[in-house]
């Protein structure tokens, strides 16, 4: 008996040894995979920096894409920031090369099948360069450079970030186990973290996020320095993904992403397109045959989960197949009649964007809604239908409204009179903001005083919104340079609490005169979510009913109403 026991013990001991051996093999294999990825990356960087042409190119097999990349990097304007004025090499990397979509092309250029878009990130200056090339004509059509911005990250950098996060000792310690890459959510979405080099997204940083019980662990990876810079926990509560889901990617792509659709009734006429990263774009808006709006769209979604630590996501929404974003359109846009007292008073175009697992933690559901009323009013509205990665988050959707006309001016209501703005500027809607007796905060008007009053949302639109607390920016509409007429990459960091939300980069340092010129209004509401029972806002919760999981939504909608000035004369 004792012999058997001893044998048993020896066997158990052997199994233990084998188990530990296997574990250490797995860990060392994972570690060696990361080491190899990092070594390759560092070698590639060193090689291009020494070569005098410091651009990491994408390894492309498609000859058309390869040609597009080659055309872009041979253009002086595109690579002008690759070195410092002293001639020192700065690391640059091509992040994407793909056939340009119609929404990414400047007015007057149509996609002929040969136009490609090349996106490059400059790690040294933290800026993005976008190049449109025509491979049929072998020429560069347009180059645009946006400071303090980062394009969507490519797949190989996402994989690298995941490897860094999943093999980090800190993540292992916090989770008490080594996570799989597939467990990470939002791994390609850009983030920030105060008191690190990721602060205000000055470095290229992403945050693979791991949900454990009712918490989420954020592993913040600095892809400029190739290391994990910190971990943070947020409280996400418990909720599950719903079982009602329709995915119609192909139909959406074919009908709404690749071409403009037209809406027309007796009052309104406009085009609408699902862009790759600026949500649903409404363009060439006519009211009773007068062009009133060039375009309206949603450029970024900034979601912040800590004011002091400054981390969150700087995300974009768009087409399901083009976008790197985790939050994409899964249904086509839909038209809804706006009915009041049984009478149709206008129409709305709505577009939803989902994360796959919504309303489970760290999944998102956004809504864009454009309302057009028979009397000429219109309202671009945008909101969150809840959940996300923390129960004390702030959502900041960045919208852009480019007005028609080249002789516009802008004024704000100042206690008892209209005060015209002379220069590009911004204003925060706060407790000291004043409104006309009708509730108007601003107006945009032409020399004949035609135009629109702007009624800021203070919770009066009965759509679940409780007020916007919005930053409003006014900038000059430049025809000769692209400040958002085509698709914009993410223009601002996730988590700034002040006016540095992105549009400010089109105002400073040289504030231009805005009297009698074409104007663009940028509207950035600030919506704080709340999971407090009875006070839920920007929140969603799953529940069981008849054997399926359903969701209860507590939306937070935002957006100003534009009211024709004529109507109030």
């Amino acid at each position, binding site marked *: 008996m004792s012999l058997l026991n001893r044998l048993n013990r020896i066997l158990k001991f052997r199994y233990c040894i084998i188990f530990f051996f296997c574990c250490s093999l797995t860990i060392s294999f994972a570690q060696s995979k990361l080491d190899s990825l990092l070594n390759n990356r560092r070698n590639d960087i060193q090689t291009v920096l020494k070569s005098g042409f410091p651009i990491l190119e994408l390894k492309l097999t498609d000859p058309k894409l390869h040609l597009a990349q080659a055309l872009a990097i041979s253009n002086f304007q595109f690579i002008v920031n690759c070195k410092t004025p002293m001639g020192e090499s700065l690391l640059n990397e091509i992040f994407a090369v793909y056939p340009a979509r119609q929404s990414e092309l400047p007015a007057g250029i149509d996609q002929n099948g040969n136009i490609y878009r090349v996106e490059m990130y400059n790690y040294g200056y933290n800026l993005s360069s976008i190049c449109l090339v025509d491979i049929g004509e072998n020429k560069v059509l347009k180059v645009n450079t946006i400071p303090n911005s980062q394009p969507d990250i490519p797949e190989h950098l996402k994989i690298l970030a995941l490897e860094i996060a999943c093999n980090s000792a*800190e993540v292992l*310690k*916090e989770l008490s186990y080594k996570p799989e890459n597939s467990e990470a959510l939002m791994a390609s979405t850009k983030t920030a973290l105060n*008191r*690190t*080099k990721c*602060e205000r997204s000055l470095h290229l940083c992403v945050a693979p996020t791991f949900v454990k019980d009712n*918490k*989420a662990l954020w592993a913040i990876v600095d892809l400029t320095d190739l290391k994990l810079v*910190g*971990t*943070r*926990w*947020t*409280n*996400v509560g418990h909720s599950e993904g719903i079982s009602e889901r329709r995915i119609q990617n192909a139909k959406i792509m074919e009908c709404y992403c690749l071409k403009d659709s037209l809406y027309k009734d007796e009052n309104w006429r406009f085009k609408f397109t699902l862009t790759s990263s600026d949500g649903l774009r409404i363009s060439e808006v006519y009211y009773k045959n007068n062009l009133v709006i060039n375009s309206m769209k949603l450029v970024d979604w900034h979601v912040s989960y*800590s*004011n*002091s*630590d400054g981390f969150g996501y700087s995300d974009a929404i768009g087409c399901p197949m083009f976008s790197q974003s985790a939050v994409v359109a899964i249904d086509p846009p839909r038209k809804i009649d706006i009915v009041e007292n049984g009478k149709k008073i206008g129409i709305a175009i709505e577009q939803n964007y989902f994360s796959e697992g919504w309303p489970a933690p760290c999944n998102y559901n956004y809504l864009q809604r454009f309302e057009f009323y028979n009397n000429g009013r219109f309202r671009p509205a945008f909101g969150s239908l809840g959940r996300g990665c*923390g*129960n*004390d988050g702030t959502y900041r959707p960045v919208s852009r409204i480019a007005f028609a006309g080249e002789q516009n001016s802008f004024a704000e209501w100042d206690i008892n009179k209209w005060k015209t703005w002379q220069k590009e500027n911004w204003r925060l809607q706060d*407790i*000291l903001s004043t409104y006309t007796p009708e509730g108007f905060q601003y107006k945009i008007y032409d020399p004949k005083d035609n135009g629109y009053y702007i009624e800021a949302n203070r919770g009066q639109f009965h759509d679940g919104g409780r007020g916007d607390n919005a930053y409003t920016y006014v900038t000059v509409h430049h025809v000769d340079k692209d400040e958002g007429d085509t698709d914009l990459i993410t223009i601002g960091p996730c988590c700034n*609490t002040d006016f540095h939300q992105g549009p400010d980069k089109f105002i400073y340092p040289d504030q231009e005169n805005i009297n009698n010129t074409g104007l663009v209004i940028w509207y950035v509401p600030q919506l*704080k979510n*709340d999971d*407090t*029972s*009875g*006070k839920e806002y920007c929140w969603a919760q799953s529940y069981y009913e008849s054997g399926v999981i359903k969701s209860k939504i507590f939306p937070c909608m935002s957006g100003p109403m534009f009211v024709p000035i004529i109507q109030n004369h």
Partner: protein
Amino acid sequence: MKVIIQNLRKNIRCILILFILCGGWSLLVCFTNDKSKKYPRSTIVDSTQLIELGRYLFYDNRLSYNNTKSCASCHDQRFAFTDGYRKSIGIYGDKLNHNSLPLFNLESNFSFNWNEPEIIRVEDQLHIPLFNDAPKELGLKNHEAEILHRFCSDSSYVYLFLRAFPEKAFPINFNNIIKSLAAFCLSIKSYNSDNDKGILTINAQKGKTLFYSEKYNCNNCHSGPNFNQFIGAKRPEDNFQKFGFSETGNKFRIPSLRNLSFTSPYLHDGSAESLLDVLNDYENANRYRNFGQRDVQDSSILTIQTKLDNQMSMEDKMNIIAFLLSLNDTTFVNNPQYKNPFNY
């Protein structure tokens, strides 16, 4: 004999290597007096050095068990040393019990906690975020030695501690960490608001009159240099008012009215997003509709009851808010003396 000496030499070499490998150097730095030769000490305790050490510790994530939080995570200078959350978040994402309290002019406070009047020293209050277990804030409980080792093994901190505590042989300990953090917190001053300077707009002046009026009597609770003292208070507990939550019987401290532009959301549970929400709440005498009415039998809420008889006009509310905003001190939230000393 030669062999013995050779062996001894080998052993000494091994011991030395082991000593260095095991962090013995840091231990030596921590527990010997000889470092005074390397880092010159002052013979006089200089509170400036204490405050400086406190400032470094205040912003250092190493003062949390998992290196994710520092005092500044919940007390951010940009928000008058609060954090903008309804309730702050601990190192593991747990919601803390209350809204983060601002840190300024602490010398004028009767007590330092939302609902514990007996905490009347900053040092005692500091034990809560450092060692609190449920929920964990910085999570240092049972990890004290590890945390101290982090500072012992950093020569910059050894220098800062020796400078701040020149008379101590072993200065790196939690007593001294708490002392220096308290010294930094007590050094934060905010007396540069428009109201302090006597510059009030017409609306703010009207609001001030209303604030001190018989009608609203706001100053009955919000008086003193920080506008957070109950006029009749003689003991810390007198400054605690009962605001709803009658089922638990909690009492909460009267908060300061300075720097309100930076400290939203308001109230102990952060349930009021704006100052208008706060005034509406008081007007309705309904702190939190979902959790029951105030306990009207409790004499400590008499001052609140007085307000129930007076509905506030919107004009009065806006004027009172204008006065409250005149208590903002924008220089204090940008004062470099209180800023993060670390460069990244």
